[in-house]
């Protein structure tokens, strides 16, 4: 950690990841793991210029009351409570400007089975002029519940920051605890963690690619990809006893070994997807009506993705080649190598192509990992102690970052940053490149987590 002055804090150039505050300091995290801290002066700190910092500054204010001096956006992030007199902290949405502009509001209860969030669209005819999103509906006070608990006890909460990325969140959290206490899990556990993380990626990529096709009327692709997602969940259940592999990655190792029939179940679900994938990809390529809806839709320009340091398929479809499995990198990926696909178009079709390429790479990784599982045990008990550490894990969406500070074996403070936080503002932009009817498919192609940002 670098303790800096207000000037150094504001002048730091880097790929911004997250910002948070505690009682004494404001912290800013940059790739590939540089942590800056500035002392609070009368409960305030200078606002950062990075566009991605805006949400974190709003969140910090809602959580601790710390004020980002000079911040342009001071709306609440998660604070939605209504006072008994009916007043709410959220300011009224501005009225639409310009001739023919009108407003459509959507949520927090959506038409599909998804999480809660509120979207305000300003439209002229079909064209989206502006999207403002409002979150906090899934706020559960997770970080506060984790403080004061031992790393093992608090792992259940890390696993529930975002259920679709439960393995990645548990992994980032476990690696932060292991860094703070300077101990390492057994090699078998490290390999099994990677197996689970890649299965999670495969299940989510398959499910989302199908859902995008379903959103534009291709039910056939939707049902085939949903079948494959189901086959990965069934394999995860056979191998680890839980369909989403929740609570299996814990600080110090893994809570469950690979079950006897698990390996065969995983390999057969990999084979099934690998066999059918070429014919499914051909459907994407052969049908002009499908391509018409996906190509040139929901564009995130390279410069914008770079300004937000976007990760995952959102960043990689817009020219960003970062993958936290390589930079900063963590075990065991250095042994297996990794090809990171990058595209420049930044549209829905590019995000699908990235995810299809990642499916192929994950299938290869899981096979290689299973073929060479070490045999040295599953877990070591975390030692008691004090210290702070940063952990990162590449979820299917991008890098999940966890920072925690331990004091005599219990969590004194922590922060967890889901990649969605940097992707939601990009969605707000992407929607303005298209018509209103394309919002569901653009939203699905970015697939930000609501729970992951509401905490």
């Amino acid at each position, binding site marked *: 950690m670098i303790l800096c002055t207000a000037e150094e804090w504001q002048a730091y150039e880097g790929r911004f990841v997250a910002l948070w505050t505690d009682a004494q300091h404001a912290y800013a995290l940059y790739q590939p793991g540089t942590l800056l801290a500035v002392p609070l002066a009368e409960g305030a700190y200078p606002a950062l210029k990075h566009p991605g910092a805006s949400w974190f500054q709003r969140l910090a204010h809602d959580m601790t009351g710390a004020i980002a001096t000079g911040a342009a956006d001071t709306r609440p992030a998660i604070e939605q409570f209504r006072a008994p007199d009916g007043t709410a902290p959220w300011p009224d949405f501005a009225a639409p400007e310009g001739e023919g502009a009108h407003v459509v509001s959507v949520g927090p209860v959506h038409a599909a089975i998804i999480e809660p969030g509120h979207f305000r669209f300003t439209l002229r005819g079909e064209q989206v002029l502006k999207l403002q999103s409002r979150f906090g509906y899934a706020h559960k*006070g997770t970080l506060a519940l984790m403080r004061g608990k031992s790393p093992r006890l608090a792992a259940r909460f890390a696993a529930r920051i975002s259920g679709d990325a439960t393995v990645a969140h548990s992994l980032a959290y476990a690696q932060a605890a292991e860094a703070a206490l300077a101990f390492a899990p057994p090699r078998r556990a490290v390999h099994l963690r990677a197996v689970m993380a890649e299965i999670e990626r495969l299940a989510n990529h398959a499910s989302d690619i199908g859902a995008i096709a379903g959103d534009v009327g291709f039910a056939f692709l939707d049902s085939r990809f949903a079948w494959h997602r189901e086959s990965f969940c069934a394999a995860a259940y056979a191998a680890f006893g839980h369909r989403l592999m929740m609570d299996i990655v814990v600080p110090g190792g893994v809570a469950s070994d690979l079950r006897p029939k698990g390996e065969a179940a995983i390999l057969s679900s990999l084979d099934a997807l690998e066999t059918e994938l070429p014919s499914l990809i051909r459907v994407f390529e052969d049908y002009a009506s499908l391509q018409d809806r996906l190509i040139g839709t929901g564009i995130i320009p390279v410069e914008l993705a770079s300004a937000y340091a976007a990760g995952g398929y959102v960043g990689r479809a817009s020219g960003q080649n970062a993958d936290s499995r390589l930079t900063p990198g963590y075990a065991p990926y250095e042994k297996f190598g990794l090809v990171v696909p990058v595209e420049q178009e930044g549209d829905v079709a590019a995000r699908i192509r990235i995810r299809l390429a990642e499916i192929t790479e994950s299938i290869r990784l899981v096979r290689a990992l299973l073929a060479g599982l070490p045999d040295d045990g599953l877990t070591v008990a975390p030692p008691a102690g004090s210290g702070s550490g940063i952990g990162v894990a590449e979820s299917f969406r991008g890098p999940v970052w966890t920072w925690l500070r331990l004091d005599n074996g219990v969590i004194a403070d922590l922060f967890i940053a889901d990649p969605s936080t940097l992707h939601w503002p990009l969605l707000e932009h992407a929607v303005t490149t298209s018509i209103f009817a394309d919002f569901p498919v653009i939203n699905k192609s970015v697939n930000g987590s609501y729970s992951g940002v509401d905490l």
Partner: protein
Amino acid sequence: MVWRTVARHLLLPQAAPRAADPAIAASLRARLAAASARRLGRSLAIRHVPAGSCNGCELELRATQNLIYDLTQYGLTFTPSPRHADVLLITGVAGRNMAEAVRQTREAMPDPVFVVAVGDCAVDGGVFKGSPAILGGADALLPVDLVIAGCPPTPGQIVDGLLALLEAHGDKKEGKARGAAP
């Protein structure tokens, strides 16, 4: 390419239909009869409201609609509009920030409404129990008719629970239409 895959799957043996747990159905039937709920037949429309979940329950709810579980074969469908819905299905911890949205959704639904809490969080707050940001379980918002526990419950458990609800208030012509082609 599409027709070849479709043809192949038409020839595959179909999964055996699921049946409701008779004990759960019997206990629900007694409770609903006591509440003199009007019978709606063997078809229910479900309006799902996420009230502060981690999205694990939503993943498994969506999975009930896939080829394997095929919820619609039992007459159960998810509907976007609360005006068409018979069942209010709540996931999540009943967060304070969602209380008003749940209330308005219930208000928009025609009576009778069956409230189903899906997932440990909706049962009692789950691991988040005690957080000041939450009310702790769907019954903090509305009286609950059926709970389907699990973190998250599997799609099979969700289908079984909803079938119990069908059994409890539908006509008791056991298995007549279940699983058969229309």
